[in-house]
């Protein structure tokens, strides 16, 4: 276990050390102490290492992550795991705005709640939120799966493309062009797998699926009021 204390190490030194790991590294376990809400922690990683941040983080923790597993034992600030490519990011606490924004791959697990715009413009990432999510989540979501065990705020899935949204609780309101869709067997399989990987205690049958009605995919005068 490699331990880096941010009370005695600069952000640059920390990120350089983590980014310097390669696929063949034997330093696979890392622990970061005293994050104290620092921004841009553990960003741009690209190796199969496990990083545990003991505490809460500021903006963009684990941004653009590839391969690595990053666990935050506290809560995460805005944009956690933004544009993640692969790997896993787990937040034991809550996540602020834009969690998993534009993520292109990998799995983001939020054990608490996520604020507004969770999964905004997601492009292939899978996100599982054990709690509830705020308004305008999955705005313009393109690909991937967003699973919410709790409730969803207003404007869910506004202007979304091909992302799949699964919500167990109440949805305050759907955004433009977002509709409830039939839950087919293949969706239950996707859900079962994601719930298991996210250590979520829920049954796929309890969820509803939402997706794009695809009515705004082309400009039409009749849709003017929807924009």
């Amino acid at each position, binding site marked *: 276990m490699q331990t880096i204390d941010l009370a005695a190490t600069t*952000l*640059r030194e920390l*990120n*350089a050390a983590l*980014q310097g790991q390669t696929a063949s590294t034997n330093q696979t376990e890392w622990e970061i102490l005293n994050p104290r809400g620092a*921004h*841009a922690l553990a*960003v*741009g990683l*690209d190796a199969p290492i496990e990083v545990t941040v003991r505490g809460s983080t*500021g*903006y*963009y923790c684990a*941004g*653009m992550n*590839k391969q690595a597993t990053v666990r935050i034992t506290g809560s995460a600030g*805005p*944009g956690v795991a*933004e*544009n993640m*490519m692969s790997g896993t990011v787990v937040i034991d606490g809550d996540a602020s*705005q*834009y969690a998993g*924004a*534009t993520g*292109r791959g990998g799995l983001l697990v939020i054990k608490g709640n996520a604020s507004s*715009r969770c999964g*905004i*413009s997601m*492009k*292939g990432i899978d996100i599982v939120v054990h709690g509830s999510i705020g308004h305008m989540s999955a*705005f*313009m979501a*393109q*690909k991937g799966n967003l699973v919410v065990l709790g409730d969803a705020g207003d404007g869910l899935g506004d*202007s979304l*493309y*091909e992302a799949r949204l699964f919500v167990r609780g109440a949805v305050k309101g759907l955004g433009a062009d977002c509709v409830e869709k039939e839950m087919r067997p293949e969706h239950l399989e996707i859900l079962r797998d994601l719930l298991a990987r996210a250590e979520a205690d829920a049954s796929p049958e309890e969820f509803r699926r939402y997706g794009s009605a695809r009515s705004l*995919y*082309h*400009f*039409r*005068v009749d849709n*003017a009021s929807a924009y």
Partner: protein
Amino acid sequence: MTERTPPRALPRQSATFSNETNSEIRRAAATGIYAIRGGGAKRKVPHFDDLLFLGASISRYPLEGYREKCATDVWLGTRNARKPLHLEIPITIAGMSFGSLSGPAKEALGRGATAAGTSTTTGDGGMTEEERGHSRTLIYQYLPSRYGMNPDDLRRADAIEVVVGQGAKPGGGGMLLGQKITERVAGMRDLPVGIDQRSACRHPDWTGPDDLEIKILELREITGWEKPIFVKIGGARPYFDTALAVKAGADVVVLDGMQGGTAATQNVFIEHVGQPTLACIRPAVRALQELGMHRKVQLVVSGGIRTGADVAKALALGADAVSIGTAALIALGDNDPRWEEDYRALGTTAGAYDDWHEGRDPAGITTQDPALAARLDPVEAGRRLRNYLAVMTLECQTIARACGKSHVHNLEPEDLCALTIEAAAMAGVPLAGTDWIPGLSGL
């Protein structure tokens, strides 16, 4: 006696309801959708043509045109980046996406820019091998859509440009209509094939200058503080936007006036939102000067740059470099009269063609149609761009020498006068034949 017909006045067209205006009313009435087009503002606005250089005389010595050196190189990104860019000429190629442009067109831009010693820029569609492979210096745009964004391309870029806005549509997002969303374009953007794609106008994970500062920190941390970070703004509020970009940590501010082009957006946006390039430069320079950052944070100006004289005027007003988009496409072959027959078939004419969003470009530049794209030879087109950049540079040097400058960056507002009151006010230089700078001196 024969009865004489009384004379009649000629039919009078309305200046308000011109034929052009009426045709747009009829088009809107028939279709129910706003007009979408490519390019920048077509209306006449005060521009660099309204400025003149004074040249040297008894009070200033000129440099010998063919004997004394007039340098043109420029450093971009010296504030924070470990590897700032060093370009041979102060003219760069603006961001244009693969998707809006064909692969061969992106390759041609890379070839021409590299031969001329300058940079190219990606656009709202990710980085292609065509442009990375043929661009010695490539700036990677970081846009609200984040199409194709990934850390590997960030790291193989030479600089990163955070796009906040552009001159053609400050406050608006990108647009790419279904005709151009081919399998390859859709794959790069993670979108279904054939949809009318609308990019977001705001970044998904930050709002405001305080957030931008943290976003820039993240990008620097991901790329090891190696790459210059540019921030591109549209010509909306150049004084405040420049100051806020500097506050957020930008190494370079790219300022795009309303004549700057776009691949596609609403015509009403292009013509009615934003300020002319000429009106934007001095407020931006003033912001830099007041912060003690002029020449430390470099200013790149774009929007309607066509000639070496335009370049020289932008530099004289305080820019460190300029960027060209529309002019570069014309150099490649866009709107060339050799395709007139094809333009006519599309209901337009060479020089006026702006339906870039439709993907039927006869010149094979703003298209994803393989047959049309094949019309553009990237080697030949790249050579034309190289030649054009060389001519612009020579023209700029010619003017600088005539003003007694050994480097084009030594050009200054005192070398200029204005032909109109409007241009004098916008550029902050005296009206020709007077000492009057409207808004600054006298009445």
